């Protein structure tokens, strides 16, 4: 039974650069249900990165409502918001953003350590997650010793290790070749999604649209088309 993971109504965000104001989001309405993979697509500068940042609670909208699992992050105190993010949101970045001096297992364990899990237990759970993404034999490898696809799998393990309910991904396949990108998406969809989780992916990569349950086409701060590629709940 799917539930509402993200609920956005009339979300507006304007960047004030000093010389001029740039409207990034001009009244976004969007619902994302659990068990679904939603893609935000559109040309550069259309507002999709701003939207994902607002949804993830790392950027404040100017007005409008954005709830994640019923929680309005804008009105949470800083400490509560950090705690909410740490417990409920997993991140996958375009450039992987792994800490270069930490091994794969240490990188994957970071969200658990932020959540107060003891280091030994965090390492054990991180190793188990790396095993699930097919890197059980590369636990001690540094990011520089891994291929791009392997690094992204470490990043996925890091995003999922603390069992978050919302996973936000920024261009997760753009730095990968077609075949590797395909494998990463299969992996993401296979292990990140279940009936209590939602996945939001910002992408330009049309090759991975086939994995989406819904696609929000954005342009100039608006969602111009909301496409349901599979049956919505």
């Amino acid at each position, binding site marked *: 039974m799917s539930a509402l993971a993200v609920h956005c109504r009339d979300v507006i965000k304007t960047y004030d650069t000093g010389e001029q104001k740039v409207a990034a989001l001009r009244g976004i309405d969007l619902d994302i249900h659990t068990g679904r993979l939603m893609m935000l697509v559109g040309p550069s500068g259309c507002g999709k990165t701003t939207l994902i940042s607002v949804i993830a609670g790392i950027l404040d909208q100017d007005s409008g409502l954005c709830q994640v699992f019923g929680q309005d992050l804008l009105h949470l105190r800083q400490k509560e918001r*950090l705690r909410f993010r740490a417990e409920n949101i997993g991140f996958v970045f375009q450039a992987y953003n792994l800490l270069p001096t930490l091994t794969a297992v240490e990188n994957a364990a970071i969200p658990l350590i932020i959540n107060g899990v003891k280091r030994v237990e965090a390492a054990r759970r991180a190793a188990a997650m790396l095993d699930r993404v097919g890197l059980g034999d590369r636990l001690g490898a540094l990011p520089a010793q891994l291929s791009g696809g392997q690094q992204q799998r470490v990043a996925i393990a890091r995003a999922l290790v603390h069992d978050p309910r919302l996973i936000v991904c920024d261009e997760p396949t753009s730095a990968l070749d077609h075949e590797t990108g395909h494998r990463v998406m299969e992996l993401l969809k296979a292990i990140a999604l279940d009936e209590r989780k939602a996945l939001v992916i910002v992408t330009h990569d049309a090759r991975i649209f086939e994995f989406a349950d819904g696609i929000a086409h954005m342009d100039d701060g608006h969602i111009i088309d909301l496409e349901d590629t599979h049956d919505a709940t």
Partner: protein
Amino acid sequence: MGDRGKYLGIVMGLTFASLIMTQQPAIFVGLMMRSYSFITDVGLPDIWVMDPKVQFIDDVKPLQDMKLFRVRGVEGVEWAVPLYKGLIKARLANGNFQTCNVIGLDDASLIGGPPVMLEGRLEDLRRGDAVVVDRDGAVEKLGLPGPDGKPIPLKLGDTLELNDRRAIVVGIGKTTRTFQSQPVVYTTYTRAMLYAPRERKLLSFILVKARPRQDPGALTRRIARATGLAAYTQQDFQKLTYDYFMKNTGIPINFGISVTLGFIVGAAIAGQTFYSFTMENLRQFGVLKAMGAGNGTLLRMILLQAALVGAIGYGLGVGLTSLFGWAMRNTILAFKFPWQLLVYSGLGVTLICMFAALISIRKVIALEPAVVFKG
């Protein structure tokens, strides 16, 4: 993160700062201790009595001999002996002249002699024309040039001429180096009067021992009242001398400038490198922030890193200073490394690390985690 060059840069900056902040003050402390080392060497007396105008140990203003008897008459004085201290030219066997610091000791007790006798006995001063010479003077300035150009140290039985009077070396003593570079020649007070140029007053200091259970501080005040002279405990006279050199020479300023420069250069290198270190890894901090790490956590991370490089740099700097002191232990260089210097330099390095961390922390605290989604 992962930048070995920058890491070494920070550690080297802190090592340099720590080295300068310990080595220069250690030389300064060693040098300042030399200002009163003669007082320390004399050791036994509790109180030094002198002309009220005397400002430091080498500022001798002679007293009349009868003052000695007035001091001996003060209640609480166990004993009081005279001490002569003056510069006299010595004529060496090869005809060269060398100014010497001649110390005339009480004939009966020989109080005030060198703390350690390396050759001969102090009692031999009671023999005719006898003098005891300090080892550094015997080896360096009073030594005669040998065939290979190196000085041949003065030895027992060698003779000098002090003010046209013969002086026979009967002992070699070990003394602590003082500010004055002249050799130290010990003899009896009576003989020193013969060596010294004719003057109406020749008594330099009166050395006093307080009676048992007599408070030396109270006795100094009583002596001053009774005689009109200045009387100081050994510690107070050391302090008077130390303060004179602190106030009236450029030594503290020179060393202060060195230490300040070391601090500033260390802070600049460490601060700048640490800052650029943080700036290059700002995105990583953003990732941690996005994942829910609070400013407090990131602040502790930065402080831990700063403390770690600080501890390594401090340890290396202090180690190098100790090595320097050990290597220079038998040279003319003044070097004293008390534990207080470890504390002060530790505080200095801590301040540098805090400064380096603070300028980085500002950036990290102001960082918007949304930066992680920017290309």
